[in-house]
């Protein structure tokens, strides 16, 4: 079942953002959403999460049309981690993770931080190896630790689908690798927007490549990450090698030699 995108189109104020995007995302797989800035990656994640409704087409999760779900019901099934966010007030790590319980609470006077919620929050923190930070203040954590806590918050929603918008932004190499390893290890159906093609090649089962709001390629990293496709979408020259240990593709970029660049 998983996620099915069927002819999804979306425009803001008459400007087309996404046009006729169709794809299958199998249950339990990790899918990378690639594309240059402005390709529509974040918007597609918002549509999959049900925060926006497609102008045409539909997003189905396990057979249910996401746009037909009440917001709260959607939030119990789908968790979205937006790009580097910070809280407006000082929160402890456990308080941040407890926010993920909001969709599961009664609408009026839902008990904040009841025992069940605390258990789920602590378990979620443990799943991303951050149990020892529970009582720390959020703003004292490193960027990588903050992202893990955000994933714990998403897990506290107990979703069947996890969406991540550039989760490795601003992280150092070791934090990037351990974070993506963590996401893979969860076994959840995950869709993440990424900028780094090599990270996508190493950690994703499937790649969806967006360009100017259209899906230009989809498939395994080997199928999508080819020099011709990358040249067309990103306008850069590259070679594809085989990773000496993992066997997955490694993209090696060549210094830019387009005419405009050479003239400088």
């Amino acid at each position, binding site marked *: 079942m998983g996620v099915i995108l069927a002819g999804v189109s979306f425009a803001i104020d008459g400007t087309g953002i996404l046009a006729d995007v169709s794809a299958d995302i199998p249950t339990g797989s990790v899918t990378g959403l690639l594309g240059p800035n402005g390709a529509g990656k974040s918007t597609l994640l*918002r549509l999959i*999460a049900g*925060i926006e409704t497609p102008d045409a087409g539909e997003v189905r999760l396990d057979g249910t049309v996401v746009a037909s779900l009440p*917001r*709260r*019901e*959607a*939030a*119990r099934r*789908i*968790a*979205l981690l*937006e790009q580097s*966010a*910070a*809280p*407006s*007030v*000082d*929160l*402890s*790590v*456990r*308080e*941040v993770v407890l*926010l*993920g319980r*909001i*969709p599961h*609470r009664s*609408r*009026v*006077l*839902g*008990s*904040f*931080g009841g025992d069940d919620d605390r258990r789920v929050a602590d378990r979620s923190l443990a799943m991303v190896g951050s149990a020892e930070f*529970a*009582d*720390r*203040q959020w*703003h*004292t954590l490193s960027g990588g630790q903050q992202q893990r806590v955000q994933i714990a918050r998403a897990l506290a*929603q107990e979703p069947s689908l996890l969406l991540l918008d550039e989760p490795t932004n601003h992280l150092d190499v070791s934090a990037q690798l351990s974070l993506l390893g963590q996401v893979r290890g969860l076994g959840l159906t995950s869709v993440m927007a990424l900028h780094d093609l090599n990270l996508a090649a190493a950690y994703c089962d499937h790649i969806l490549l967006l360009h100017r709001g259209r899906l230009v390629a989809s498939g395994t990293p080997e199928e999508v990450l080819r020099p011709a496709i990358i040249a067309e979408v990103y306008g850069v020259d590259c070679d594809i090698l085989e990773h000496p240990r993992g066997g997955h593709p490694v993209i090696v970029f060549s210094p830019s030699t387009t005419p405009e660049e050479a003239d400088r």
Partner: protein
Amino acid sequence: MTGKGGGRVPRGAYLGWLVLSVVALALASALAVAVGPAEVSLAEVIGSIAGHLGLPVGAGVPPLTDSIVWELRLPRVLTAAAVGAGLALSGAVMQSVTRNPLADPYLLGLSSGASLGAVCVVILGVGFALPAAAFAGALLALVATLSIARVGGTISPGRAVLSGLAIAQLAAAGTSFVIFWSAKGDSYREILNWLLGSLAGSSWTSVAISASALAVVGAGIVLAATRLDAFAFGDTSAAALGIHVNRTRWALLGAVALLTGSMVAVSGAIGFVGLILPHLVRGLSGPGHRRLLPLAAILGALFLVVADTLARTVFDPRELPVGIITAFIGVPAFILLIKRKRSAAWA
């Protein structure tokens, strides 16, 4: 202002603060009724109130003392408590839904807008419409401030405060103009009372307006506590947690305009209660709104009862507009806030 490294405030500690605040509010209110040019004992205060409520408590109270307590001081203290609670709640809600730690009905121009609305009606002499006009003024000022501050779909805290300043100045000028133009009685005093806030004119009508607004709107806000929590990481994250972001934000801001309007209708524009109380209270309650809102309301009430008692007794027989006292306390706290905060939302 905020807990350092401690994480969660234990339930026992929070309940302790809650009980302590309620007791302090009751005591301060009783003392506030007793204090003033005509000395009244606490026993007489209790006796008078019990007599009017038909309770068989306390001895007979002289008629003059009884009318000082029941007609003058008690309505004033009760109005102060309701207004303080209402403003503190308004500030807490605004800070959360706009994600702006500087948000407050006074700084963002709502109070001045409400004053202008109220003054127009007072001058025209349509008494019963007073809270409605103040509400309309507060709502217009809020919409104006947020539309001016909005750039490319986002509203930065700094721009919101600057736009609020502009709207507040405009509304204050409008208020002064309307009062001068009507030119009857002591214009200057009346202008000061509306612009700086004063509880001197409190009556049982003031109590009815402010207390019923607090009970109805305040209860609605407290019931939305979980939804307010969801705004901590911003709109997208609130939506991803199942909140209808726009609907919820405008409903809550509308409630704040109604609450602020009702409070300003009886007291004028009292500043800084809504700004500093939520920040102080988060240190005692933690950031969760289910705990923050009730404690902020009680401590807001206590703060304004004390401030108003100071306003009418320190320079006895002259009386200060209570807004002067809240500014003397609030501005240093405001400066501390600006200096100390490090959350990214301040950028």
